[in-house]
Every structure is written in structure tokens, then in C-alpha cells.
């Protein structure tokens, strides 16, 4: 997997999927580009307009807690975010990210601030904060998740192997 380079948008702990995309939008449509305009609207109005293609979301503990809505990672991706870096993730969200091909990194994000330029290496599991010249060790993804993500998500994995090919 390739290295990714982007600018950080910083969020706190326990960002739930209702904040990522509110329930009132997700039931109306399956058009992610349209829904992307409402990304984080309830806690950071205007966030969508701050994003440049390839930027990262950087957060604290338990990012993506709450509902199982796959619209959450899809909308983050549609808004132009290339990776979510957090201290920890909620289980269903973490899995959904891999399934839809949105890279996630688990590491200590305390030293990363809004606007910092960050480079990540998914395969070797580290985050390099270029602005602060700091190298942060990340928790490597489990091998099955690397496999699904390398295939481009679970749908692509299925198409390539004709079913699960994980064991």
C-alpha cells in the first residue's frame, strides 16, 4: 500500500456517527456527494468547505462510536478525506472503513494539531508529523484487514476471490 500525505483536521474524543452524518440525512438518499456537505455539521458547521482533497481527520479516543451506518465512512471519503487517524476507533466504524476502502490508523494523536502536515505509512504502521518533525508509531492493522484494504475494500475482495479469502 502506498504512503499518504495530507493536512490534519483535528477532532476530540467520542466523535459519534450521528455527528459524522446525522440520521436525518442518511435515510433520505444514497448520494454520498450530496450528503458529504453535511459532514460533522452538528459539531463543526462549515467543515466540508475547509477540506482540500487528500486531507486527514485526526481525532482522540473512540472515533465513530454509535450506529452501524456505513454512510459515515462513505461520506468522509466523498468529502475528500483520505485517511482517519485516531487514538482508538469504535468497532463497527473501524470495520466499515476497511470494507469501503477508507484507510484508518490507530496511534497517539496528542502531538498532532489542526493544519499539521502529516505523512502516513499504512504497511509499516507509522505516522510522520512533518510540521513538528515527529515520528509516531501506530498500531498495525490486523493481517485480514490489510488484505481487504489492499484489494480495495470488501466488495472488490469478493469480486477478486469469489468470496472470503482470509484464512
Amino acid at each position: 500500500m502506498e504512503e499518504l500525505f495530507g493536512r490534519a483536521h483535528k477532532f476530540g474524543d467520542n466523535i459519534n456517527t450521528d455527528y459524522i452524518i446525522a440520521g436525518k440525512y442518511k435515510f433520505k438518499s444514497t448520494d454520498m456527494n450530496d450528503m458529504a456537505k453535511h459532514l460533522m455539521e452538528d459539531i463543526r458547521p462549515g467543515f466540508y468547505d475547509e477540506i482540500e482533497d487528500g486531507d486527514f481527520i485526526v481525532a482522540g479516543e473512540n472515533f465513530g462510536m454509535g450506529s452501524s451506518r456505513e454512510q459515515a465512512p462513505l461520506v468522509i471519503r466523498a468529502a475528500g478525506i483520505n485517511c482517519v487517524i485516531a487514538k482508538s476507533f469504535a468497532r463497527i466504524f473501524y470495520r466499515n472503513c476497511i470494507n469501503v476502502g477508507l484507510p484508518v490508523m490507530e496511534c497517539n494523536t496528542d502531538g498532532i494539531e489542526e493544519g499539521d502536515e502529516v505523512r502516513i505509512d499504512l504497511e509499516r504502521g507509522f505516522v510522520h508529523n512533518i510540521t513538528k518533525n515527529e515520528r509516531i508509531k501506530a498500531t498495525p492493522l490486523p493481517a485480514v484487514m490489510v488484505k481487504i484494504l489492499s484489494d480495495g475494500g470488501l466488495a472488490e475482495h469478493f469480486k477478486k476471490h469469489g468470496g472470503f479469502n482470509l484464512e
Partner: protein
Amino acid sequence: MGTIAENILSAHAGKEVQANDILVVPVDFMMSQDGTTPLTIRAFKDMGGKRVFDPTRYVIVIDHNAPSPMESVSNLHKEMRTFAQDTGAKLYDVGDGVCHVLVPESGNALPGSVIIGADSHTCTYGALNAFATGVGSTDLAAALIAGKTWFKVPSTIKLQYDGELPVGVYSKDIALRMCGRLTANGATYKALEIGGEAIDSLSVEARMTISNLAVETGAKVGLMDFDSKVGAYLEGRAKRAFKGVSADADARYDSIIKEDVSKLTPQIACPPDVDNVLPIAKVEGKEIDQVFIGTCTNGRLEDLKIAAGILDGNRVHHKVRLLVSPASREILMSAMECGVIQKLVKAGASLTTPSCGPCVGTCNGIPSDKEVVLSTANRNFKGRMGNTKADIYLASPATAAYSAIKGYIADPREVL
């Protein structure tokens, strides 16, 4: 030497597994609702899916936004009806009820089984000894095609509740206390195994309230033991043969937390997080504008009976709107037959279609700016009920009903 979670997954994998193993296992039952089915259909087609591996093991439920309040939603509902027809899956349509009530009611949540649902509160069926967990739409689509899914076997936190619940204190109070104590990520990636004499004494309905909130601690599943009450609940309902699975005496746990519930008081989750839990004494007197009794957490017959018992012969406070949503058609029918609905409506309750509506902020009761809502649901995040400027408090049906009469958050033990 396995926990309940390890032993269910071992039985499905056909080999002994333990925490942190990664495996692909057969899935016994699947469910998706109107917030997640449209993306499931998209993923199913994208993966080249032609047929559901076994249509008798999959149900689709229209509950989150029902009846449809707008044409875009109606069109997604229509797509779901077509998909059900094409695949032969059972569809529960508008008015049938809330998914997590329908799956157990229809005898599809069975002890020892593995169930995935495209809804985070699928963990509710843990009360029936099922390894049941929420997944996203793509995971569900893969399982619809392959009949399997992959799991990392979770390690387990054991929660043991002993003692006898005082009058006016219910399973919801145990559940909220559990969320406050473990916090929103205290059990992330893990299984909860919930037991003890206080759990044994609860009805199966009341137990489901606790398993329902397991996900609010980050847990994958909220498992309970199989016992004669679960057996009796499933009599005449169970769609397939089943066998309860228990933990071995030498099972290994991450931690064991014991609590005596005999001193427990009514609990309130304060905005904007489910783990922001306080004893009622700290919140009593807070004025409220709307009360909502319903949802997959507390919209069952037992809950409506408790609320009706308190509201009977009283009037809802003139400044308060009381919304009641029986969680299924079966519950609504039974509540009518025993006079519960009449008591609620006479006291001033407004009845809504059995569905999720207000809990997810889609329809049927969105609060206005600066309003305070007291709800029996499972989430109180900012904006959850459709308005970011409203505050949501969570409580038991008894606390909700008594507060609706008083016009402020009030302790139901005063009248019980």
C-alpha cells in the same frame, strides 16, 4: 475453558477458538433496516450477488423512517420492497414494528446462534444467548451471498449483578449504570457477559433492555445465559432447533465486575452522552417539554404496562407532550387487549406507529430549539432526535411516565 462468546464461535468454527483468533464462521440469521438496506442492496449488486444464500435467514425491516415523511424516503422504501420480492426475503413493512423487537418476537433470535444485523443495537439478542452484533451494509451483503462472515474473537468482561432491585428501579437503571461505569469505550472490541441473581430474576423482555445498551460501552455483544425463562419465551416461537451455550467454569475474563443492585436508585443519562449517567437525585426537578416512551430499548409490553400503571387516572402535565410508540404490532395488539393503550391515551399520550421515528430524529416528534426531552431510548447525542439545539435525557419507562405527569424529571419511587 471458554467464555460464552468463545464457546458459541468455537461451535460455529468447528474447532476450539479463543480471544483474538480471527475466523470465518457461518451466520445463522441476518437483518437490515431502512437506514442500511439501500447500501446493502448496492453492495450486494456490486459484489455480483444473484441470490441470498438462504432467504429464510434474512429479514428486512422498514422502521427507522416509517411511515415515510417524504418522497425520497418513499423511493428507498420501494427499492427495499422490490429487493425483498426478488430475493424471497421476509419484509416487515410500515407499522409492523422495530427490528430488534421483531427478530426475537418472530423466533429468529435463538440461543447459541450467530446473528448479524445492519444496525448497531443488534446486540439486543444477547439476552437470548445469541452472539448477535451490528455490522455495516457491506459486511451484511457479503454474508447474504456467502452465508458467512469474519470475526476477531472478542475477549470478555463479566458483569455480575447480585441483590434484589428495589421498587421503582428497573433493568433500564442497571443498563444506564453499566454505561456510566464502563464508559463509552470501556468495552470496545470486547464481549460483555452479563449475569447474577438480579439478571436471573428479570423477565426476558427486561433483560433485552440491558443487552440493547451493550454497544453503548463499545462492546461487540452483550451475552446472557440461557435459562428456563428464555426457553419459555421461545416456546411456540422458535423457528429452528437451538441449544443454549454457557461459559466453562475455568473461562478466562479480562475483568469481573460485581455490583449489588439492592441500593441502586433510578439513573439518568444526561446530554450529550450515554455514559454521562447520574443518580436521579442529581437531576430531579429539571423541567421537560417532551417525553418519549418506546424504541428497541423500552417499547415492549412490560414497559407500556409500567408506564400505564403510573399514568392511570392522572393527566400528562399541560406543558409536556407525551409520545408513546409500542415497539411492534403484536405489542400494540396486546396493549389494547389489556387496556394499557386506553389508559395511556386517556392520560394524554399521543400514540405513534410502531417504529423508531423520534429516537433517530427522522419523523414523529422532533423537538424544537432549547427544548428538553426525556426519553426511554438508548442514545442522547446532540442532534440525535433531529435538532442539535435540544437536550435529551434517558431514563426508565417509570421515570419517564412519572416525569410526564409532574412536568419535570421526577423520581417514580414517590408513587410506587
